[in-house]
């Protein structure tokens, strides 16, 4: 992912460019997941934590979390897109439109989370109109799974700012849901 690190100039929003990253992140995840799968015995499940961690390391091209903060921020956005796409695809399955051979059970944890992710995505689109920065924080925390410290690093901001933004985003999101505007 050298090019990924190179291409992301910190200037500007860069969302257009970021869209191009989605397939790369997707491929990287697929490659790592397949590699891990090959090393596992049958019946063992993938170690998603290790896998995702490895994916971030690959993307930054470094052995640590410090470098390439903007790459991590970009990855968070890509992860949002990937998960939302997937959640959408899974919801479509329920109506029999999908291709997958493994239908999602109505009340599985993954199913619940798919609905949550779709609801969150919708809410974030509204939130973007209010304050884009909060959206970035939510993407880092929820979709990329970064800790507060990692989020601060990814967004090149202070830990306190992240904590404050996160609290504000939560309040706003809970409000949006509480009003029954989303389902």
């Amino acid at each position, binding site marked *: *992912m*050298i*090019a990924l690190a*190179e*291409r992301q100039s910190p200037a500007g929003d860069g969302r257009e460019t970021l869209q*191009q990253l989605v*397939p*790369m992140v997707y491929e990287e*995840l*697929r490659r790592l*997941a*397949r590699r891990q*799968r090959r*090393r596992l015995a*049958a*019946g063992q*499940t*993938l170690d*998603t*934590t*290790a*896998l*995702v961690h*490895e994916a971030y390391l*690959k993307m930054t*091209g470094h*052995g640590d979390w410090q470098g390439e903060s903007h790459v991590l921020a970009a990855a968070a956005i890509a*992860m949002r897109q990937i*998960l939302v796409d*997937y*959640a959408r695809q*899974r919801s479509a399955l329920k109506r029999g439109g999908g*291709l*997958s051979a*493994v239908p999602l059970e109505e009340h*599985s*944890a*993954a199913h*619940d*989370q798919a*609905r*949550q*992710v779709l*609801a*969150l995505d919708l*809410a974030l689109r509204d939130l973007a109109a209010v304050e884009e920065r909060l959206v970035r924080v939510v993407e880092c*925390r*929820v*979709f*990329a*799974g*970064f800790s507060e410290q990692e989020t601060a690093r990814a967004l090149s901001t202070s830990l306190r700012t992240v904590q404050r933004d996160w609290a504000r985003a*939560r309040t706003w*999101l*809970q409000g949006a*849901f*509480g009003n*029954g505007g*989303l*389902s």
Partner: protein
Amino acid sequence: MKGAEALDLDRLLASGGALRGPLGEAFLAELVEEKALREGDLVGRYRVLREIGRGGMSVVYLAERADDAFQQRVALKVLDRAPRDREARSRFEQERQILASLEHPNIARLLDGGVDGRGVPYIVMELVEGERIDQYCEQHRLSVDERLALFQVVAQAVAYAHRRLVVHRDLKPSNILVTAAGEVKLLDFGIAKLLDPEAAGVFAVPPTRTVLRVLTPEYAAPEQVRGEPVTTASDVYQLGLVLFELLTGRRAHDLGGDSLVELERVVCAGEPPRPSRSASSAALRRRLEGDLDSIVLTALRKEPDRRYPSPADLAADLERHLKGLPVTARPDALLYRAGKFVRRHRLALAAVVAVAVSLAGGFGAALWQARQARLEAKKATEVKDFLVQIFERADPFESGGRTVTARELLDHGVQRIARLEEEPEVQAELLAVAGSSYRGLGVYDSAQPLLERSLRLQRRLHGERSLGTADVQSSLALLAFKQGDTKRSEALLRAALSTYRTLLPADDVRVADALVGLAACLMDYDRDEESAVLLRQALAIRKKRSGPADPQVGLILNELGMLRHRARDLDAAERLYRESLAIQRRAYGPLHPEVAVPLHNLGALLKTRGRLTEAEAVFREVITLETKLYGGDYPGTADSWGYLGHVLRARDDFAGAEAAYRRSLAINRAKRAADHFATFGALHNLGKLLVQTGRAAEAEPLLREALAGRNKLWGPEYRKTKETAAALAECLAALGPARPQETVRPLH
């Protein structure tokens, strides 16, 4: 909505973000699943017959026209991802049409393409039946001049496409085939770009900066790695890599691991490799030094504009080189060596001599004549079985250069098979014989194309569900299993088994043997219980049809023993191994490879049980046996020495253990590839032992080498890499603080 539907951010965060939660798990699990098409599936106007290849972003199937009176077979390439939007789709369409306009005898034609019902794009290409150019060169033992001539054809074809403003972008040996008629065909021209919906046009100019998407890291040009524009010069670079490989038989770049950082280091910063330095012999080195070195290095320059301006210029340079050198006639050493082989074994092995003579004199002719004389099929099968046996057991007859001789006889035979085109039945059978023989010799790369060709012929002659097809499928399955491709092995065996079950009685031995193969695949997936069921079915058939003392019964008992061994049912495992051993000894005598197999397993079992004296005796017997059979430096013997070392170390016989490990290391170094995992295992074992016995200084370089090797093979996170890192840390600690501080971490 409220209640259960309310957004619960805390729960999303609880598992460490959505990607690590249940949704992410489901997503990643689905990512690794193969979404392959099956036989009979329709894509556009084409019906899928079977998968024939798999690339980074697409799967290739053999397919045929579903709507036509005539049966046209094609290669159907299906992208594994849908284009993102309508614009990307129309670009795909547009570029496809440009590629369809390429008409050149050495470029596989793009016939059709489109988007299937699922929105997935596909392309249909001319089906090329041939071998990879590198394998073709090896197979036919082409001289340097012949290789250069073949390569010039490739370069000219690329030059033609460049004149039509199409860049290949993914030139590599597997994309360049040579047909049985010796005709070069380039595959996948411009497909890399076509399959890349994010990228702009296929034109070389104006260049667009594209997202890095190196399809084949080993063949990436520096500008591709750096994400810079890909132009005709990138093709010239890749041609340079191909030429390097054709001349030396080796890859130009030795890429460690799969890190893209490493890729950048090697491709963009490293010195371009000099072919003559990779020459496998002094003679080849002399041939490559000078002209050919500089031609390859010019093609491989880091800066695109310092390479040959076009592939045509590269070809022209090679032409000048060829004209400037006198032809060197080489005596054909084959018949001389074959004669020697025959003489050496005249008395001892008259039957082998007879076959060897028929091989040297007319590999195909013997069988062909047998057919002509209307000998019954059984007879022909016997001859074939005999031949296969000879070569499967070729190395045990004597140590040393014997393998080479057998191989040469075989290589010679293969050339004759190619000339049997008017007799496809015989050809198909002999291809399978030769393929199985190469497999027996462990020359898997040569075995594969022959068996594949045989399979194609059998299919054409007798159809998918025929015994001929099923037999070759079984043979290919064994090869795939030996190559570690369990998945393919399983698929082939299931196909063969289904045919056998339709056409043969339920208790036919071929059914049994396919079951044994399938059981081995399942064992690979840890599906031990299913595996045991199949083995017991096979055992019942074999006992009934071949008798309880048949070697195949012994083989199955050994497999069953392995299953009990894995289940820690050590009593049952020991019983099964001993039973298997007794059968094999009775069937083959004490000195046979099949005897070594259960013996080895028994040794491992005894070590597990802590019966070290017995284990030592068994491993010593295995080593004696292998040494007598294969000579002292058979790679497998290295593993046996390693086991013996473990046993001796467990017995606190450190001197004995050290000697055994050293022996193992020496054989690995002499007989296995430099980066074979067994070599690093031997280094690790020896290093650890030396640390344990207070010789840390001696151990350090060994452990360092083992760590570097394992790191390269498996990455720093793998259990074994970590074990070596720990051993090295212990070693450095033992060396004390007199040395400069350093941390031991398996870094990329």
